[in-house]
């Protein structure tokens, strides 16, 4: 029953909640970002990061450094922490933690399939896959010619199998079909994760429902904006929206027929939680929309730590680390390209 988690949560989840709260205290602060933003080179960034928890992962990297190397090593730290938590988790927390990685699994599947379509070497593609989304038979994806084969040969034995029912066709894989497959899989995954959290009940359900609903709404907006001026029809666009969230169903109907960013703004401003996001943007502009959405997401993720005895803290921590890695990537790119004046365009402070 909701409200009585304090009696039983710590039996199985107390240790790992303490661990994840400890990990959270290692996130970079505003002072760290100020130091990083003043770096003159990637070596300076490496030097500043050596004083943080990323130190051991970067210390042996030879010069010259690349931005992709910094991102890879920081991601390795996240992967190590995730694996440490997963190996100690019991049900249902272990299933919850696995759900967090399914998004990366979908990205990896699409990367392999797209790269194979473009006649790239499989080993090269595997090196670019996200480590959190790896599974045993991932390399076999390269032999599939259509989605039916993709499912039958490889994905039937993976956690993504249930999500394929909506997009199995015998059509050959091409760029449009792959894009629709990506978004259909992600939609099915989000809905499944949402149902799972609802079944868990209690504070986990309350907090995760809010975070996942925001994710679904953000996806709907991004799909709309990215499909403006493309060959994606309105019906196809509507089919890619999730069946939950604040915008479901009326907001989705209006977004499906939007043809420019101002119409999208008109739809979103009817919903009070999103008015503050779009009030930061000027008319016709969409460049800062990503940052505005990330800031809102970080706010909600930080709030998850204000309550105890729920699994939302694990999801929030993973997402906050990913945001931190995005920040480091952006700072590194601005420093490498000698564009430090633009560094605050996309950095989102977490604390």
């Amino acid at each position, binding site marked *: 029953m909701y409200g009585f988690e304090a009696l039983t949560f710590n039996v199985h989840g107390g240790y790992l909640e303490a661990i994840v709260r400890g990990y959270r205290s290692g996130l970079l602060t505003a002072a760290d970002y100020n130091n990083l933003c003043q770096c003159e080179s990637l070596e300076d960034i490496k030097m500043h990061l050596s004083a943080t928890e990323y130190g051991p992962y970067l210390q042996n990297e030879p010069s010259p450094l690349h931005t*992709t190397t910094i*991102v890879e090593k920081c991601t390795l730290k996240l992967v190590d922490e995730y694996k440490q938590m997963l190996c100690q988790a019991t049900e249902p927390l272990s299933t919850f933690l696995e759900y967090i990685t399914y998004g990366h699994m979908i*990205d*990896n599947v*699409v*990367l392999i399939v*797209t*790269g194979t379509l*473009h*006649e*790239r070497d499989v080993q*090269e*593609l595997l*090196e*670019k*896959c*996200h480590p959190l989304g790896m599974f045993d038979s991932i390399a076999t994806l390269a032999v599939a010619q259509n989605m039916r084969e993709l499912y039958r040969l490889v994905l039937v034995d993976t956690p993504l199998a249930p999500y394929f029912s909506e997009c199995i066709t015998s059509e050959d894989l091409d*760029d*449009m079909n*792959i*894009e629709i497959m*990506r*978004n259909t899989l992600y939609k099915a995954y989000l809905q499944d994760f949402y149902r799972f959290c609802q079944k868990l009940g209690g504070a986990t359900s309350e907090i995760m429902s809010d975070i996942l609903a925001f994710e679904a709404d953000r996806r709907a907006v*991004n*799909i709309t*904006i*990215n*499909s403006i*001026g*493309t*060959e*994606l029809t309105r019906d196809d666009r509507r089919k890619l929206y999730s069946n939950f969230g604040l915008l479901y169903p009326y907001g989705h109907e209006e977004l499906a027929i939007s043809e420019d960013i101002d119409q999208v703004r008109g739809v979103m401003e009817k919903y009070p939680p999103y008015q503050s996001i779009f009030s930061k943007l000027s008319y016709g502009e*969409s*460049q800062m929309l*990503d940052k505005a959405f990330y800031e809102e997401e970080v706010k909600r993720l930080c709030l998850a730590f204000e309550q105890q005895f729920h699994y939302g803290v694990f999801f929030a921590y993973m997402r906050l680390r990913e945001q931190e890695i*995005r920040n480091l*990537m*952006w700072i590194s*790119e*601005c420093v490498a*390209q000698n*564009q430090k004046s*633009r560094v605050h*365009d*996309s950095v989102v402070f977490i604390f």
Partner: protein
Amino acid sequence: MESSKNGRESNEEISEKDENILSFLDSMDTYLTLMDSLSSTLRQGWLELASARHSMGASRINSTLLDLKFHRASTTLQVNEQSAGPDRELPHFTLRKWASSNNPEKNFEEAKFGEDELLKIKSNSLRRRDTSQSSEIQARSPESVGTPVSVDDLAQRERSKSLSMFGTLVSPKLRASQVSFETGTVATLFI
């Protein structure tokens, strides 16, 4: 009489040399302005690409997704020598942008310039140092296809096609990056 004739000739020589020097300095100024503009455009393009990568994720924008299959170049530059009088040939540039991959003979944005015209366009539009992006070559004669609106639509379609290796639903930042590099290509032609 002879000395005044010699004086007039030397004045003419001096004035011709002055003109040559002025013309050279003019060209240098134009060249430096163009280089500045190109550098700024390319910096903008690279930053927009990084921004798109930040927005869409590293797995969606990386070099392993580039298409290794054979395909026609969508933008080509042809240089011909054309006669501009007795004992004089000038290079003539033809830039074809966004040629359809289905019908390569159909050029949706074509601009033809002789060297003299290029110099005139440069000196008129790029006299002042300007770090903003240089303007694209406008299609002077849309002789290849119907109305300008259809040219834009088809060019836009070809642009989307070339970005499809990163997916069909890409961020506006990636499209902006593409436009920046396209502008840089045109600026390179001027240089």
